[in-house]
């Protein structure tokens, strides 16, 4: 298996690729080129949305490292689970899923309920204060989806100031995590392995995570799909056992309705008392609305939840069951669990005032800008591009290995592709040569 494009989370298998180029056309940042029929090349503007994996008809694109999950019993293994995991087993309650993970060998299962609540509290407080201070421009954009943040950095840098300057829930969870675990289990931080189970392709390559604390603390990350069969097996085994032998551990079981709802589109704002808010999901929709915000629209909105996966994280590329089925199951559970709060408001308010929830936005912004180096064009090259397009008069056939004619023309002007690659130009030239020959033949006669 040839592993190209180590820059981000896309794993490409040349043997499976049929060279259809569908991936190239759906890429929202035009980061894919196809060379020599089926050699996939990923440019550094990949944001990790997973659209290419979704559409690949031959399974040549995988969005995660292909290492299997093994748990070292000599170490303390903890696992941070995405709220989406609880939606993947309709009919099962969250504690059973937690119990299954423990049977797999995890010493502790950490879920995000409390941290989501903290985040929602902080976001609500910031928005309320912003009505007076106007510190940040409306509409504020949710900082939660890392793909959205990368998309903004690369295509809408002018909107970075709209991103809510708060830490994401997972970042709140990770602060001092290893120290807390080492105190609880009486072990050294280096003997702790922190795993993450996620539906999100942009989170499986932990060394490319958005924030420094994620890169530092999370040792390994796995897609839900890669551990699903093993977990399912353990859960089935548990069902056949006597109830007393359940490795049940109450502290792991404080999962709230907010947590369950989080993975659904609108799940983030559902737990916040902000009326002027809306939720948008899907990569194309996200781009459309970011374009509109840049035109000055939606200034009467206070908060927008963006997720690049359809129907939000429940539709993540690394999930297993159908997103609408998952949604239906989760909706049922929310009715049982309710949307109450676990944490004390007074305590949260104090933490907010102490600045606990604020993220170092300037640092993150400058890091993001560095990750995506800009390749600008001059007015002259822009005119050259127009001239090439005029000459090609193509149909975006993509045979050249670029997603559309404009991108191809840009590649040519930048010296990354050759005008000869254009099949339309070649065909036209052939036809003209043929005509010339015919005419030449006629005059001879």
């Amino acid at each position: 298996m040839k592993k190209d494009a180590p820059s981000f989370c896309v794993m490409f298998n040349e043997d499976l690729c049929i060279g259809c180029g569908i991936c190239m056309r759906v890429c929202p940042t035009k980061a894919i080129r196809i060379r020599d029929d089926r050699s996939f090349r990923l440019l550094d503007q990949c944001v990790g949305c997973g659209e290419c994996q979704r559409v690949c008809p031959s399974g040549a694109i995988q969005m995660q490292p292909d290492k299997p999950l093994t748990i070292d019993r000599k170490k303390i293994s903890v696992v941070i689970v995405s709220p989406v995991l609880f939606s993947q087993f309709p009919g099962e309650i969250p504690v059973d899923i937690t119990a299954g993970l423990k049977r797999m060998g995890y010493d502790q299962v950490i879920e995000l309920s409390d941290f989501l609540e903290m985040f929602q509290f902080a976001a609500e407080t910031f928005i309320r204060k912003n009505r007076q201070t106007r510190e940040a421009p409306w509409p504020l954009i949710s900082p939660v989806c890392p793909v959205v943040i990368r998309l903004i950095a690369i295509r809408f840098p002018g909107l970075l100031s709209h991103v809510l300057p708060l830490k994401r829930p997972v970042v709140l969870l990770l602060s001092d995590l290893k120290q807390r675990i080492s105190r609880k289990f009486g072990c050294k931080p280096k003997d702790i392995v922190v795993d993450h189970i996620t539906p999100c392709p942009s989170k499986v390559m932990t060394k490319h995570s958005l924030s420094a604390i994620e890169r530092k603390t999370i040792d390994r990350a796995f897609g839900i799909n890669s551990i699903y069969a093993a977990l399912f097996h353990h859960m089935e085994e548990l069902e056949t056992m006597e109830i007393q032998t359940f490795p049940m551990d109450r502290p792991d079981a404080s999962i709230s309705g907010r947590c369950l709802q989080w993975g659904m589109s609108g799940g983030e704002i559902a737990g916040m008392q902000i009326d002027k808010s809306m939720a948008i999901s899907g990569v194309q929709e996200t781009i459309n609305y970011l374009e509109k915000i840049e035109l000055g629209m939606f200034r009467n909105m206070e908060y927008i939840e963006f997720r690049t996966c359809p129907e939000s994280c429940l539709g993540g590329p690394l999930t297993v069951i159908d997103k609408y089925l998952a949604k239906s199951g989760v909706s049922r559970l929310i009715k049982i669990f309710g949307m109450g709060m676990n944490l004390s408001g007074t305590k949260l308010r104090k933490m907010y005032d102490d600045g606990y929830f604020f993220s170092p936005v300037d640092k993150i912004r400058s890091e993001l800008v560095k990750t995506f180096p800009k390749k600008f064009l001059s007015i002259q090259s822009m005119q050259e591009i127009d001239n090439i397009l005029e000459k090609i008069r193509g149909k975006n056939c993509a045979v050249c290995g670029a997603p559309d004619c404009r991108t191809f023309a840009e590649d040519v002007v930048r010296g990354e592709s050759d005008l000869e690659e254009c099949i339309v130009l070649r065909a036209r030239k052939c036809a003209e040569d043929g005509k010339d020959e015919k005419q030449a033949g006629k005059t001879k006669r």
Partner: protein
Amino acid sequence: MAVLKKEFHIHKNDFFRAGEASISIKNLLKALGIRPQIIRRVAICGYEGEMNVVMHGGDGKIIVEICPESILLLITDNGSGIPDIPLAMTKGYSTATEKYREMGFGAGMGLPNMKKNADSFAIDSVVGEGTNVRMGFSLTSKKE
């Protein structure tokens, strides 16, 4: 001197596609590496102009000229025209803005804000014939 000129058509009552021209202009400016603050002002003015044409104008076009040191935005239509330009330029004066804003259209800003966002602004209009708006943006401008 290198000048890049682009022209986009705006169709009467085409709310669905209103904004497309401004988005194209915006993306053009981004590819050229123009500062985000300037792009934002051009985009807001372009979109506001497009909406004006769609709502009150008729058929029209938006022309952008990009020079090494400035951007010129020309919005022209063959619509109903503005009878009283000073009144239309009054802050807060609007014919249907609030309603349109609630529908999710328009930035609800109108001509005075186009003037505010541009570095130079000129408007002329003949009732029954149409309106021309010319806006200039300096690429060295410090305006936020």
